């Protein structure tokens, strides 16, 4: 039983850090074997700390952790993948932090789930390496919703249960999917969703990433998917996702670049 071990070793991704006392930090890790874990790193804010460089957010590392009374303590750590490409580019970094924030908010501590670990790792790699990465974020949002039991209804109307036709329908976060024009009400804040967007959502849900990455997604379509998925994520979490504000700031500051990035889709290189 892993719970009875005093020291355990696991690969993990650093989701976030917060300061503790004068020189320590609390890390939120997503481990491969134990799910989400909070752990203290001692003395990490001193210049000579041997661990500081290995515990930055967006780092995949091998951790040795000791069971503590309330929080586990990091005793050794060695980087596996520092994801430098995410650190050198604000656009990529902001999306990667968003991915980490979502996993942090969707999960409870000590619930092992290797699939989620793998999903985040794959997403960070895609964000670090692909020229056009918006589709990687959309794929991640959909996969995370699905894995957490919030698969949206994309085949039939959530109210009348009739099969959806390929016309403009409506998206309802509260209803958990798509509602047809005749069932649509004003109360549940439903917004129109194009037939193309619904098709892509289906591909994101059922297809592999490589399938979704082959589709050319223009800026308008990406914005439509992003709005729909984020609205649903917020509704499920019942709270705001903070890191989206920074993504918006970046877009406002550099509208031309953000547009071309989203516009070109995520065609394979």
């Amino acid at each position: 039983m892993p719970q009875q071990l005093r020291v355990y070793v696991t690969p993990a991704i650093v989701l976030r850090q917060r300061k503790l006392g004068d020189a320590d930090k609390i890390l939120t890790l997503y481990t491969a074997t134990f799910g989400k874990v909070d752990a203290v790193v001692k003395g990490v804010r001193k210049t000579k700390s041997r661990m500081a460089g290995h515990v930055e957010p967006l780092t995949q590392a091998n951790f040795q952790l000791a069971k503590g009374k309330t929080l586990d303590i990091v005793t050794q750590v060695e980087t596996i993948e520092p994801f430098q490409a995410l650190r050198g580019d604000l656009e990529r970094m902001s999306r990667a932090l968003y991915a980490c924030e979502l996993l942090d908010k969707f999960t409870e501590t000590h619930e092992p789930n290797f699939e989620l670990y793998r999903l985040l790792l794959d997403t960070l790699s895609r964000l670090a390496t692909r020229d056009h990465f918006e589709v990687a974020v959309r794929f991640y949002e959909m996969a995370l919703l699905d894995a957490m039991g919030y698969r949206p209804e994309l085949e039939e109307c959530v109210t009348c249960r009739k099969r959806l036709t390929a016309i403009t329908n409506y998206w309802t976060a509260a209803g958990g999917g798509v509602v047809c024009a005749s069932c649509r009400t004003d109360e549940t804040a439903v917004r129109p969703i194009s037939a193309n967007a619904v098709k892509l959502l289906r591909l994101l849900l059922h297809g592999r990433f490589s399938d979704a990455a082959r589709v050319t997604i223009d800026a308008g379509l990406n914005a439509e998917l992003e709005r729909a998925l984020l609205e649903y994520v917020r509704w499920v979490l019942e709270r705001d996702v903070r890191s989206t504000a920074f993504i918006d700031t970046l877009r406002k500051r550099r509208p031309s670049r953000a547009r071309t990035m989203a516009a070109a889709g995520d065609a394979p290189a």
Partner: protein
Amino acid sequence: MPEQLGAAPAPVAKLIDAFHKLPGIGPKSAQRLTYHMLRIPPEEALALAQAIIELKEKTVLCSVCQNVTESDPCNICRDDARDRAVICVVEEPLDILAVERTRGFHGLYHVLHGVISPMDGVGPEDLKVNELLTRLRGGSVTEVIMATNPNLEGEATSMYISRLLTPMGIRVTRLARGLPMGSDLEYADEVTLSRALENRQDV
């Protein structure tokens, strides 16, 4: 508030509460500090209270560099001997003291009062970034040195500011990253070590 049996008197409880709000002070430390204040001579306690009042009344943020100061503009901004073409951007006022201790920098400073931290909802609009832009519009500054901490948030902040300043024709530099004095190579992380290699120097 009526005094309950076994509860601290209202003035004591009030001070415990006030101490508890300070960073790093838990409930037990707050109690200990409060009972310590009860034991010390009145003039010592009053001196502490006075010091806190003066801190709030007699300090302002320098209208130029945003550092905490008694006189506006601050001593560094008023000093004619300093190089006005170079600005060193730091996160907190304490960082100025650290850079000053090196005695290797003679330009001016700019304090951001924080760092971009997307996951905590802290964006550029919460920092003194606009004040920096206004300052630079004068046109006499040729170089901005980003001295934010070498971590994810510090990097994000310096990249974001560099994105705003480079179109203005200002040279934006970043403190070098390398190995700290007295450290061990075998424990160095890849990021630090690869930067140290990139920026290696002739001996």
